[in-house]
């Protein structure tokens, strides 16, 4: 009896394989199907995109979108059960972990630009943010030219510090640019008056200010150092079938109105763990992006 069972199973498997042969699974989709699990890379403090809540569970706007992608992958592969594994990543580890197959999607606040696309792919943009600066209200800095000759901090290795360097040279501002290790330390430099301003993606500045000891002391500039640049969920390069599924899933979320709901949840309402409210209504550019999803790294594509 048992023997027959095994044989029939093998037969069924062989038949199944030949059926699937029509659309041979490769790359990430294949490994997801074989292991029955998908691994999401998450950040620990990219509020409100991907961070740990009070129960040390990764949550956030990008995480919610990733879970939608997981549902779509599950449907595409016709799986009854798809286990979701979560792996924390940092800006230094996300590339190696993606390259060696540890994570399948990186759900965070990674800027999508042409340089990086040589190494990884991005799905449809989930956020757009411009480079601005935060100052103390007391320092009375109203425009970029007021930064002339002052010390300004930005996080090392970001597109923001690059834009600051360029603006400094182009406008002859004579700014003393201080690189900081991470966003928290850069903000600390403004808090302790080591620098008058911190140049960063405006949404990250909003969350740093909202989480600071005295949010009322700070103001985020109107002047911007850049056009709004896209954030994308990262996946492995040269994996067209997986990218197709992920792109279709995110496009459906954005155009179907679900995206706007997820946006409201994380950007206009109180979020865990401390009940912060970023109070950042959706921008015109992101609204356009929701209507016509795109994965372009070019800021001009999002006007």
């Amino acid at each position, binding site marked *: 009896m048992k023997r027959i069972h095994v044989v029939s199973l093998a037969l069924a498997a062989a038949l199944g394989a030949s059926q699937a042969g029509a659309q041979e699974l490769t790359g990430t989709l294949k490994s997801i199907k074989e292991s029955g699990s998908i691994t999401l890379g998450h950040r620990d403090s990219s509020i409100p995109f991907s961070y740990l809540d009070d129960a040390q569970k990764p949550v956030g706007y990008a995480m919610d979108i990733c879970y939608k992608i997981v549902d779509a992958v599950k449907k595409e592969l016709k799986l009854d059960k798809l286990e979701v594994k979560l792996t924390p990543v940092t800006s230094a580890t996300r590339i190696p972990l993606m390259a*060696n197959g540890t994570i399948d999607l990186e759900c965070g606040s990674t800027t999508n630009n042409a*340089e990086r696309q040589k*190494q990884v792919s991005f799905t449809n943009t989930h956020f757009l943010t411009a480079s601005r600066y935060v100052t103390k209200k007391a320092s009375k800095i109203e425009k970029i030219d007021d930064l002339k000759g002052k010390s300004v901090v930005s996080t*090392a*290795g970001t597109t923001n510090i690059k834009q600051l*360097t360029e603006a400094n*040279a182009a406008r002859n501002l004579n700014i*003393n640019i201080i*690189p900081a290790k991470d966003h928290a330390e850069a903000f600390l430099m403004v808090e302790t008056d*080591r620098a008058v301003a911190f140049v960063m993606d405006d949404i990250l500045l909003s969350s740093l200010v909202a989480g600071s000891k005295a949010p009322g002391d700070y103001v985020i500039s109107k002047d911007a150092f850049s056009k709004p640049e896209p954030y994308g969920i990262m996946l492995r390069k040269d994996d067209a079938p997986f990218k197709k599924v992920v792109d279709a899933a995110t496009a459906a979320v954005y155009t179907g109105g679900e995206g706007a709901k997820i946006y409201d949840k994380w950007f206009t309402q109180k979020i865990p763990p401390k009940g912060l409210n970023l109070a950042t209504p959706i921008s015109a550019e992101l609204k356009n992006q929701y209507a016509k999803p795109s994965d372009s790294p070019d800021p001009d594509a999002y006007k």
Partner: protein
Amino acid sequence: MNYNWNWNIFFQPNPMGTGTYLDMLLSGLALTIKTALLAWIIALVFGSIIGVLRTLPSRAASWIGFAYVEFFRNMPLLVQLFLWFFVLPELLPRAAGLWLKQLPNAPFWTAAIGVGLFMSARVAVQLAAGVSSLPRGQKQAATALGLTTVQSYRYVLLPMAYRIILPPLTSEFLNTIKNTAVAITIGLLELTGQARAMQEFSFQVFEAFTAATVMYLLINIVVVTAMRFLERWVAISGYISGK
């Protein structure tokens, strides 16, 4: 592995507009060497003073030496740099604190002094060990010759103690170079900092850190070789490190 290797990345222009990516790493290397040299000088000067204090007969002197060493070696270097950079200016009167914060190149000086003081505690322990490893008769003979304490240290004890501790001092020097990497925490873009910046810009993480590793290896080889020559040059035949 789905990784797009690109060793030519080093010759491509970096986005900061300061030449190629290689130039970026080399400027980091130069800063690492500068910081390490200044830190090593501070470590040797303070380490020698404290090391001698620890071996003096005076109770007070050896207590000061003990307190200094325990203070600097029992706190992680990362925490020390953080304290020097962010906390110290807040403890000073407001004007002095503000002056300190607005010094140009503050991360460089803080890193060199912070790493230097941390390493000085280790040099002090080495030197004290070197002095106490000498036969007791040496000191007694110096005293019998009518030398003062200062003279007996200057002419008898220290010249021998330094020769004994040259090999461990070599590894302390290497540690000083490697410890400067901690300075990215206060915004010093030395070699490790530049390698990190390079991987953020280009996403070529393995190439960036491979190059940094090779550069660290090269400086350390130079240091080891130079110290070997120094050891041979100062060796006294018939004595411990002589042949």
